[in-house]
């Protein structure tokens, strides 16, 4: 991904910035221009909580090139506490502990690098809450 494109997404990938519909309260992540529930165009921007629960998950064994050294790894959809959903890699997890409803927190991680000389892309991955 060109640096300029990933740069525009920093509020979402770095701070999990979402939009809450001013009319119906639906949270969209990434933010939308029009609410897909009620059609409203006004939103409040906020940073989602970094804790949530796994809604669905799968294991990737043959990933695209930039993730080839990391396979196999888990990805899933996480429903964040306080609203909002995102698709994310699930890290530091053993595959047998992976289940729907698993409490996770979003941790700042490297997502991938553009070869040896390109930029390093950072963002979030879910990790199980063990405390």
């Amino acid at each position, binding site marked *: 991904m060109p640096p300029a494109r990933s740069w525009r997404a920093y509020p979402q990938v770095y701070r999990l910035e979402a939009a809450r519909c001013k009319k119906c309260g639906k949270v969209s992540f990434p933010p939308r221009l029009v609410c897909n529930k009620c059609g409203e165009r006004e939103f409040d921007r906020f940073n989602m909580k970094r804790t949530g629960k796994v809604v669905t998950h799968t294991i990737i064994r043959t990933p695209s090139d930039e993730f080839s*050294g990391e396979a196999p790894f888990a990805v899933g959809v996480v429903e964040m506490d306080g609203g909002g959903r995102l698709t994310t890699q699930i890290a530091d997890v053993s595959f047998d502990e992976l289940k729907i409803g698993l409490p996770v927190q979003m941790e*700042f991680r490297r997502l991938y690098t553009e070869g040896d000389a390109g930029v390093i892309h*950072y963002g979030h991955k879910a990790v199980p809450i063990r*405390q």
Partner: protein
Amino acid sequence: MAVGIIGYGAHLPRRRIKVEEIAKVWGADAPSYKKGLELREKSVPALDEDTITLSVEATRNALARAGIDAKDIGAVYVGSESHPYAVKPSGVTVAEAIGATPDCHCADFEFACKAGSEGMFVAYGLVKAGLIKYGLGIGADTSQGAPGDALEYSAAAGAAAFIMGADDDRMIATIDDSYSFMTDTPDFWRREHQFYPSHGGRFTGEPAYFRTVTGAIKGMLEKSSMKPGDFKYVIFHQPNGKFPKRAGKQLGFNFEQIDVGRLVPTLGNTYSGASPLGLTAVLDVAEPGDRVLMCSYGSGAGSDAFVLTVKDRVREVRDLAPKTRWMLDENVTYLEYGEYAKLRRKIRLAAH
């Protein structure tokens, strides 16, 4: 105006490797390493963890305890000898992730293992000078030792973050005084384009670590008119388990004062994170009124020392983020050498 720590936080990778597992691969004698270094295991970062990611997580823990808006942080300093980029600051990504941009001063610091305490010192100094409201100083590293080298047994990963401020009602520990000591001492270095560092072998001990740490602590005690018995805790830079114990003994501290902040036997040497992480472990258990002495060390060589007094607020905030000993002792998984070599990119991969 009292200035000090209003937020602190640590972050450690979850993976560990035991000394036996490394020794086995190189045909080395594990018991003699364990005894010689007083080191049983060390932390290992995952492929997706680096100085920036560890710094962000440590800072989020510091912010949870500080209870401030990150927008009020006027300076972000990341001290490390493993900044992910050769050119592009680590601090900008940390500041962006916590939401401190754009109204903020930012710089990366380097001075071998002393870089973390430098960031703390400068952040503290700027708050004291009234130039900023809050300043963030971070010590973080994901350091590497060459396979088979003595450093491979100790080079570890971790981060500690401190938010400095002057708010009385948020004060966790005041910084009462500081003292720095440094000389040109070639005990450890890494030239540009070299992946692994070089070191002066036995030269790293006596004329480097011990002379510098002893000089800094003697200078600190003299400047603040204090003596070893005045402190509940003392935290040294800890490249292995033995050095801080020996330095402490030479200076007149007892083992009880040293041990709470001595994480290295099960953490390894976190370089710029080492004494700052020790301080987080001390703040996790210290009581109001306790005096704390911290002394970093960076090869090359220099030390920064701080005298701190713990305040009542420590009791209210310590449970707002994971404690350092919990991350160190409870939340861990053990690796075999093969997995470790993959994670530390010690295996040369074919181009694709």
